């Protein structure tokens, strides 16, 4: 039977439990004897801890223990970096609990273990912490001055400057006919998940079970084993249902040590569930960056070079993947465009704020905003149509594979795998109806100004080095899938069942289950990040299928005394010589692993076009129409990949227009609830369209698939800002900062109306 589940909009298996409230998230677990952990966090952004008095807290009935730095034998361990673990970053890694100094509001100081969360919270109020405040570093500019150091012993607030290079940028700028220099900045966002983080740990006879693992359970087990002085085999990380990932959930945070440590400390199961206010100050922040950038062009609009310097606000510590966005800003600023000469630097600055990590499209949202804004400004200067300007400079199909700028240190050479960027741009313009709508540019209709914008993007996927999958034959002859990829809500149970059913040539309902993430399932797993699950896990599944078939043939040949080559496998039937016929059910328990090794990346790409209207009097933006076309290699499930594109786009629109983690100059986070951190709601962006295509399969994996799901968010900032600029051209509005809040837009309009009086832009 030749199946064609791959490529079909198969309804999701997960939904059978999620729509009935039968998902099982970590907070749904409550074993007997459970204690609840609550965490005392610093209310001071920068200071030295003089003393912590826990006596009064311990007197409260129901409080079992209070853990501080001094309760951890040998002192609190630090959290090692997972990605780009360069020696320069080492001194800036975070301790699992504040040790002598606090460096951001929200940093853990003490853990209370109590018989209920409410009693634990009562106890928090009784802990007396004496902190001597130090002047706070609340932004990159203050950090760069260097007179207030977060880590005095290291003598600098800047652990690293990345440089992305290709060609000879300085030479290109010397001879270019046209040069423009601009400064842009992005706000501070985060990958807010609807399920707050949670960890539950159970300690029994030298073995630790940690529930609530997500994203990278195998890697986190490695860190935890080292910190706890345990062999990895003594720790089981369990991945439950996970209520959203977006890059932020599942990295190793302080609590990922503190809760397992607490469980061993008291010899009872301990659960910690983050509340939303904690989540705002404790989960990785992201995005806040500024750039001073120059572009060089020939008179005909050919881009010749790009050079500049970005400054990235890192928060107080280098977290597990904290360097990724800063690196990506430098390496991916050129994106889908052919820019032969590049020299872009990106400096990382420590500040007294929540540390940063990746958030969907890390560095790319920022870089795409910087670049697409710049391109529109240049097109206007050179009087070239903005579409034509982009089309002329897109990387061509004949350029593939296309070498990207080299980034140092952590030497990384990367190339784009496949695609024809002009096709997706043309398709987007056509579906959007650009030629008709363009007439509305800058027009005032019924009190609202109309603006349109278009732009292109690439998104990386398929990070290596490896993924593992295992197939096992169940007693009824169905097949169970076990995989090292993790589920964060993206629907991998369904897409892996599709891939496995096609590979095994059996009906999808004969795939009994897809078991993912947890460390017990496969020998080695790498999880879900960098849009890698489908490509890496799916390719490993193909290898596991081949290995399972080989194993069945070998086992059958022994059982039936024939050569393995005499055995034929047709769907789930095993056919041998002399009329021998069996089924998978006759081979119960046979299991085979498969792996996929990969050093390259896939590049999904596409184009966005937007039509907005702006009420200049109140600075309010409405998205009238938004079209995105994404070409993402071989599509496993068009319904779920389209869902990823739209979902990611709405997150991007949140970042472009609403979301901002605002701090004051004392390092106090001024955002304390979802009433302050504005997320898109159902009424905000109803007019979005997405088309997913599979024009160019990836040549780097047997599925031909590409990682997808970040392209929506990557472009949103640049596209919306350009559309707003075009709508408000009458006022000379040129946004250089996100998010475009009503206040910010109104200020730019006012500055345009009254050019002589000073108003900030």
């Amino acid at each position, binding site marked *: 039977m030749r199946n064609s589940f791959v490529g079909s909009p198969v309804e999701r298996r997960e*939904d059978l439990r999620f729509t009935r409230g039968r998902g099982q998230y970590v907070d749904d677990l409550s074993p007997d004897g459970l204690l609840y952990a609550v965490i005392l966090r610093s209310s001071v952004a920068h200071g030295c801890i003089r003393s912590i008095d826990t006596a009064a807290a311990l007197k409260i009935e129901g409080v079992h223990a209070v853990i501080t730095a001094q309760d951890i034998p040998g002192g609190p361990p630090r959290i090692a970096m997972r990605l780009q673990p360069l020696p320069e970053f080492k001194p800036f890694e975070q301790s699992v609990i504040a040790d002598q100094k606090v460096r951001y509001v929200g940093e853990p100081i003490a853990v209370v273990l109590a018989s209920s969360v409410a009693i634990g919270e009562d106890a928090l109020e009784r802990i007396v912490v004496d902190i001597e405040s130090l002047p706070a570093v609340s932004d990159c500019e203050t950090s760069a001055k260097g007179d207030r150091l977060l880590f005095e012993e290291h003598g600098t607030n800047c652990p690293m400057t990345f440089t992305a290079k290709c060609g000879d940028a300085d030479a290109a700028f010397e001879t270019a006919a046209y040069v423009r220099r601009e400064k842009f900045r992005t706000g501070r966002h985060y990958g807010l*998940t609807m399920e707050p983080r949670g960890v539950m740990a159970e300690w029994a006879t030298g073995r630790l079970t940690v529930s609530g693992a997500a994203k990278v359970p195998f890697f986190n087990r490695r860190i935890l084993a080292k910190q706890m002085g345990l062999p990895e085999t003594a720790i089981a990380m369990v991945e439950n249902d996970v209520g959203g990932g977006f890059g932020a959930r599942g990295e190793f945070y302080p609590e990922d040590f503190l809760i397992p440590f607490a469980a061993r400390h008291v010899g009872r199961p301990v659960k910690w569930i983050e509340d939303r206010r904690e989540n705002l100050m404790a989960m990785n922040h992201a995005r806040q960056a500024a750039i001073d950038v120059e572009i060089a062009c020939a008179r005909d609009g050919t881009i010749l070079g790009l050079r500049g310097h970005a400054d990235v606000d890192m928060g107080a510590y280098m977290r597990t993947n904290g360097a990724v966005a800063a690196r990506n800003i430098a390496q991916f600023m050129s994106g889908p465009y052919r820019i032969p000469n590049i020299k872009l630097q990106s400096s990382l600055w420590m500040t007294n704020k929540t540390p940063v990590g990746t958030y969907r499209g890390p560095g790319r949202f920022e870089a795409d905003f910087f670049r697409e804004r710049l391109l529109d400004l240049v097109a206007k200067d050179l009087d070239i149509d903005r579409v034509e300007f982009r089309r002329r400079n897109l990387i061509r199909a004949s350029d593939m594979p296309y070498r990207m700028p080299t980034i140092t240190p952590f030497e990384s050479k990367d190339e784009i795998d496949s695609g024809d960027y002009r096709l997706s741009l043309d398709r987007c313009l056509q579906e959007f109806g650009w030629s008709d709508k363009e007439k509305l540019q800058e027009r005032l209709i019924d009190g609202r100004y109309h603006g349109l914008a278009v732009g292109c993007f690439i998104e990386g996927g398929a990070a290596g080095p490896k993924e593992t999958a295992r197939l096992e034959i169940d007693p009824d002859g169905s097949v169970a899938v076990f995989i090292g990829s993790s589920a964060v*809500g993206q629907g991998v149970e369904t897409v892996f069942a599709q891939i496995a059913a096609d590979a095994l040539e059996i009906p999808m309902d004969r795939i009994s289950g897809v078991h993912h993430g947890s460390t017990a399932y496969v020998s080695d797993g790498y999880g879900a990040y960098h849009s890698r699950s489908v490509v890496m896990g799916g390719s490993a599944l193909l290898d596991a299928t081949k290995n399972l078939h080989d194993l069945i043939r070998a086992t059958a040949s022994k059982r039936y005394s024939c050569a393995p080559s005499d055995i034929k496998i047709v769907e789930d039937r095993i056919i041998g010589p002399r009329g021998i016929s069996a089924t998978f059910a006759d081979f119960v328990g046979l299991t085979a692993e498969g792996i996929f090794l990969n050093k390259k990346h896939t590049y999904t790409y596409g184009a966005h076009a937007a039509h907005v209207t702006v009420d200049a009097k109140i600075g309010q933006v409405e998205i009238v129409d938004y079209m995105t076309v994404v070409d993402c290699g071989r599509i496993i499930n068009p319904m779920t990949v389209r869902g990823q594109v739209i979902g990611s786009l709405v997150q991007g629109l949140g970042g472009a227009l609403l979301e901002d983690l605002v701090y004051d100059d004392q390092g106090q986070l001024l955002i304390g609830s979802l009433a302050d951190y504005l997320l898109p709601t159902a009424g905000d962006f109803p007019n979005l369209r997405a088309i997913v295509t599979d024009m160019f399969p990836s040549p780097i994996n047997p599925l031909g698939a590409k990682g997808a799901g970040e392209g929506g968010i990557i472009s949103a900032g640049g596209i919306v800002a350009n559309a707003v600029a075009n709508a408000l051209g009458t006022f000379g509005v040129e946004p250089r900062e996100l998010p475009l809040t009503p206040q910010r837009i109104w200020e730019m309009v006012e500055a345009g109306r009254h050019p002589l009086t000073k108003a900030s832009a």
Partner: protein
Amino acid sequence: MPVSFEVNGKQVTVEVEPRMTLVDCLRHQLRLTGTHVGCEHGVCGACTILVDGEAVRACLMLAVQAEGCNVVTIEGLSNDEALTPLQASFRRHHAVQCGFCTPGMITTAHALLTEEPDCDADRVREVLSGNICRCTGYISIVEAVLDARSAYRKSQGPPEGRS
């Protein structure tokens, strides 16, 4: 103190602290974990349940306030055998990704469609704007709710579960 109410058709009496929220009581005392907690300050809607037929945020209500009420949670809107028309519509339209907001979306939509089976897209968006979803971008959720309207129009009333 003891509090008695009906939940999903069953009479229960639970011993609670006066400060315990209804959502904590449902999740931790009664083990009805389908109702989720996303913000504890009434903004995200993940904990939406039905109290005497109305969609209510269970994080903004104390358990003691439920005395004598008729409470229905997502478990009470579900059957073992098959998805209800509303649930099937969520699945068909890919209105679910991580599933965390889903029970609140479904309880909210159920309350809306029970009262207003002919509501239009704007009305659906208005009502659902009190429930935050971070995954889907909402478009598929609105489509799913609109598509489920026909199941609520039949004269016998709402088709769901035991409510």
